């Protein structure tokens, strides 16, 4: 008994069990669930939101929020996609990532230099970036002529997403930057007194979220081979939902990248499962809404 009591239950365990249970039920009732076609479809479905969610996890752990992630994805895809469709693939990829980082720096600048609450700064940025994206593209669809098919075919999107999760976990868990992110999220004032510069950490986190939005843009373009400004309008809520389902506290200071990975898994399997069992697609939004609340309640109970 003593041994069991000493063992601290990882915070991700309940939601991991839930995800496994969901998969087990689907795998036994629907033979198509584990088919490679379906797994590939789920991996592709999870990629864009998954990559965004890693950046969102770090942002939320600092106690902030980033409402502009999907808009950043759209703008970087359209800026880079223009170059890629013109034949300059390498320059286009660079421009995509650079646009993401620039948008992130804009958010970080408003939050650190302008001392604005993150929810307001990124709401303003959402409006500005989203409308710039559509104005820039003139509402046109960008075709990239299979130049990014390397990123979008087969299980590549899933592998890229998993690599981003691993990298995100390593940064958050094993580097000084990651530790500082948790520190300023836990108590910004005491972190500052301990010699950490909250402004620099936040700037890095928001720029990182921008960089990941750029990467998500490349993967999304690779998958679809086309891009239009409103393709990703529901990615922002999807990413926040995955982070919250994954047990990261919206108050900051607590949470983890693996938790978010499970959160992305749960929302992806929910969407996929709804299709497989023939549940009307209109129900999925309601179900994901309920999943968020259940996760939040479970987190509260666990803390007690």
């Amino acid at each position: 008994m003593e041994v069991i009591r000493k063992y601290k239950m990882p915070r991700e365990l309940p939601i991991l069990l839930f995800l496994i249970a969901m998969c087990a039920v689907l795998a036994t009732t629907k033979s198509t669930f584990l088919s490679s076609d379906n797994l590939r479809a789920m991996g592709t479905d999870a990629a864009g939101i998954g990559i965004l969610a890693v950046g969102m996890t770090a942002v939320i752990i600092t106690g902030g929020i980033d409402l502009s992630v999907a808009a950043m994805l759209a703008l970087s895809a359209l800026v880079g996609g223009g170059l890629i469709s013109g034949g300059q693939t390498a320059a286009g990829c660079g421009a995509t990532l650079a646009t993401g980082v620039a948008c992130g720096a804009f958010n970080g600048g408003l939050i650190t230099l302008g001392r604005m609450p993150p929810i307001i700064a990124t709401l303003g940025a959402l409006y500005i970036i989203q409308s710039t994206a559509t104005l820039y593209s003139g509402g046109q669809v960008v075709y990239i002529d299979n130049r990014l098919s390397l990123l979008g075919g087969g299980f590549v999107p899933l592998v890229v997403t998993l690599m981003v999760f691993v990298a995100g976990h390593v940064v958050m868990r094993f580097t000084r930057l990651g530790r500082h992110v948790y520190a300023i999220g836990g108590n910004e004032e005491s972190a500052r007194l301990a010699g950490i510069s909250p402004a620099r950490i936040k700037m890095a986190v928001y720029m990182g979220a921008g960089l990941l939005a750029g990467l998500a843009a490349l993967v999304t373009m690779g998958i679809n081979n086309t891009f239009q400004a409103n393709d990703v309008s529901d990615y922002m809520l999807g990413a926040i939902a995955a982070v919250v389902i994954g047990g990261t506290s919206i108050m900051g200071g607590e949470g983890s990248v693996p938790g978010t990975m499970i959160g992305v898994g749960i929302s992806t399997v929910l969407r996929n499962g709804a299709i497989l069992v023939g549940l009307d697609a209109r129900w999925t939004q309601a179900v994901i809404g309920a999943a968020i609340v259940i996760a939040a309640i479970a987190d509260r109970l666990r803390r007690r």
Partner: protein
Amino acid sequence: MRLLYTVKESPVIVLCVGLFVCFALWVPNFVDGFGILDDVKQYASYAILAVGLTLIIGSAGIDISVGSVLGFSTVLFGCAMARGAGLLQASLLALFAGTVWGAINGFFVAKIKLQPIVVTLSSMAAARGLAYVIAGQGISSIPLPASASGLVNMTYGSYAPLLLALIVAVGGWLLLAKTPLGRYILAVGSNEEAARFSGIDVAATKYSIYVITGFLAGLAGIVTAGMMNTAITDAGLGYEFEAITAVLIGGTSISGGEATVLGSILGVVAVSLLNRGLGLLGINDLELWRMLCLGVILIVSVLLDQLRKRAARISARAQAA
């Protein structure tokens, strides 16, 4: 000069006057009393939502489900009318539905003590999803039957929505400025712990403002259905962010404890003036330019508000010395 930094609505007043003067100078036909009233009327449901959000943001909460709850009530109203319910019955049903959503939000925020953004994020998804479910497969709008013509005439044909928004605004102002509940809201918003220790029932205070906001979203849903003469499943999509923007432009602090219904209403007026001015300029992509301007205005007005507060602090210190 001192008024500029002691009155918390001053940035939004400057903004409204500035927008009006600029558009009046540069946009032909902008100054036209009824034209302006017509355009402001389009924002009546935003104004109704903004009043509820002012209370919630004043309590340091947030409600991003208002747009979806509006949509849910609109669809329920439309379905009820289409199935032969009377105007009064359908309206009461829509108001009741909005209030129930508010009560659900309030229950999870006040009693279970979950974070408002998490709770309302999920009710945002759930209310919209259920709106699609009750509308039926593949149906994106339900035309209102002839029995709703009374409502349509009133909302579409007259300035009744403006009057209604005005009544709601005055009610919100009275609630916030003249009642104990209003003081409790601001006390909870500025320091929840201190509010609890001074004997305020924090849970009941929070619960009641989410219920009020849900009720107002239901009301705005009926107005929206009437003004469009049809119940659209996407009604209210994105309204939450625009209404929150108007509230923040108006000088209500996102960290709570400071709220002004007058400022929020002026914020909605500023947004509608912007919309009218840009519309009359005849530019393409009106929606996009409006969003762009809205983003810039939001950021600038919050930065201005911080300057105002700093100036007020310095002036108070100078007086004390």
